[in-house]
């Protein structure tokens, strides 16, 4: 499809680069924007610019944040002796929603995947080891039950155990093959309560 205007074409192009957006949807979204008033468009554009400018990784847990350290890491109410290790920032949100967990997080930013050339050095594993202090009592491994997630759990267990801290993993209530992000809150709550020592 070639549109009559290059401005339209360019926006359609950007939208179709987004995940799960095809050209038809991209076109519909573009038409929607065209019908909004300038104020909406300006705020929308500015919010995108702010997104990139203001968001960074927390220097402690590697979650997205505007303030470093992030609100969770700086909160007085959190139990600083427990660290829950997850793959992605979205997993932090999923676990936070359960209201069952009051410790800290550590976002690995991925899992070990030789086929995609992701080795332990590419993940925030060194940073995790540096974070573990004398007052750390427990590390909870809450990775997805994929092949790569399982192996990353085993790998972390191997290097954490010699440090003399309690290492647990969340229970397998999570349906096989389902990402944490999509597990319902009840399932996740049970999985966190029912974690087992490894």
């Amino acid at each position, binding site marked *: 499809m070639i549109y009559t205007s290059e401005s339209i074409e360019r926006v359609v192009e950007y939208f179709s680069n987004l995940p799960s957006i095809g050209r038809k949807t991209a076109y519909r979204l573009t038409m929607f924007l065209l019908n909004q008033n300038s104020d909406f468009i300006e705020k929308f554009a500015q919010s995108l610019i702010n997104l990139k400018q203001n968001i960074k990784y927390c220097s402690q847990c590697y979650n997205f944040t505007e303030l470093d350290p992030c609100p969770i890491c700086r909160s007085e109410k959190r139990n600083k002796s427990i660290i829950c290790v997850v793959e992605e920032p979205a997993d932090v949100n999923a676990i936070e929603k359960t209201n069952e967990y009051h410790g800290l997080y550590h976002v690995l930013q991925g899992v*070990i995947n*030789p086929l995609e050339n992701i*080795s332990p050095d590419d993940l925030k594993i060194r940073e995790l080891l540096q974070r573990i202090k004398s007052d750390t009592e427990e590390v909870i491994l809450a990775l997805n039950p994929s*092949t790569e997630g399982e*192996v990353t759990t085993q*790998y972390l267990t*191997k*290097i954490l155990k010699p440090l003399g801290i309690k290492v647990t993993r969340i229970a397998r209530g999570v349906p096989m093959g389902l990402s944490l992000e999509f597990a319902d809150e009840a399932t996740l709550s049970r999985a966190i309560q029912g974690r087992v020592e490894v």
Partner: protein
Amino acid sequence: MIIKRLNIKKLRNHSNSEITFSPLINFIYGPNGAGKTTILEAIHICSFGKTFQPTQDNQLIMKGNESYSISCRCQTDLGTPYDVNVEFIHGKKKQIRSSLGENLSSKNLIGELPTVVLTPDYKIITSGSPNERRIFVDKILSQCSKIYLDDLIKFKKTLKQRNALLSKENFPRKFDENLFSSWTEQFIQLSSKIIYKRYTFAEEFPRYFQSMYSDISSEKEKVNLRYLPDSVTADKYEMKISLDFIYDMLRQRAKEIENVEKKRGLTLFGPQKDEFEILINDGLARDIASQGQHKTLLVSLKIAEYMYLKELNNETPVILFDDIFSELDDNRIAKVVKILQNTDAQSFITTVNIEKILSKTELNLNTKRLFIINGEVNETN
């Protein structure tokens, strides 16, 4: 499971076929290229998410169209309805819906509408490489057990990952023992479960195979299927094999072979190297069976697969026989049809020459005849 109704839209040369079936034998006949096999393919897509032919989904769409769709109305053994809908739009992800839910993957379909398929291409099961027989066994076990299917998918992924890691270790960089042993541990855990399941299969399946072979064959040969797992020694075959025993043997093997694996950059042990031998009079069928024996072996294996699934699964499978009667002599055709009628199996049999079958067999009233021409279906009972 019984398939009651099938709707095929824009699949190969079927523009819009609505077919109702007999709960017993359905003969699908017509000239070559009429669209007989497409009906079996449509059923197969509803039970495995893909066709049994080596055709890409893009190529299955009727010329000049953008998509195909299939919907299948079934009835479970308990009498409840089970529906499957598969829609494929060119260049998009296949949309699968069933009574189980929306947005399913092929994995979710497998085992729900269990299916036994036989086409002339399957000759390789008795005559081809060990891989063909592993595929044969895995297809049976995957339909029996969601856990096996899940373990198998994870196993294949783990094997690929472990190989990728091993091949990378050939490059000069520091070798991470912890990482290698984590992948090995995962590999051995999954391998043990797969080998254990295959052992159980090999204990039960030959009984079905032998009884089918002697029913169909007029000779008195003895046949068998024997499991030879890689790295798990067979002289312990007498005792009841446990999961722990297999795990320990694989652990030991992993240790012995580790250095060679690192040198070769490849996983050198595990169930991807298993063999299932098909024996006839204690010789390997692959080497010594005659043409006629191969055909009888194959059809016996397939009917045994049906019997095995019927007994071990909660749901009775359906049978898809694609043009196999042209391969068998009259005597064997009559025997196969008789077995299908005696077991009340719902079967879908394509053939060019229906007269040949009708003249040799006594069909009961519930048999349905569907004449296919240019992708159109006509009932001729």
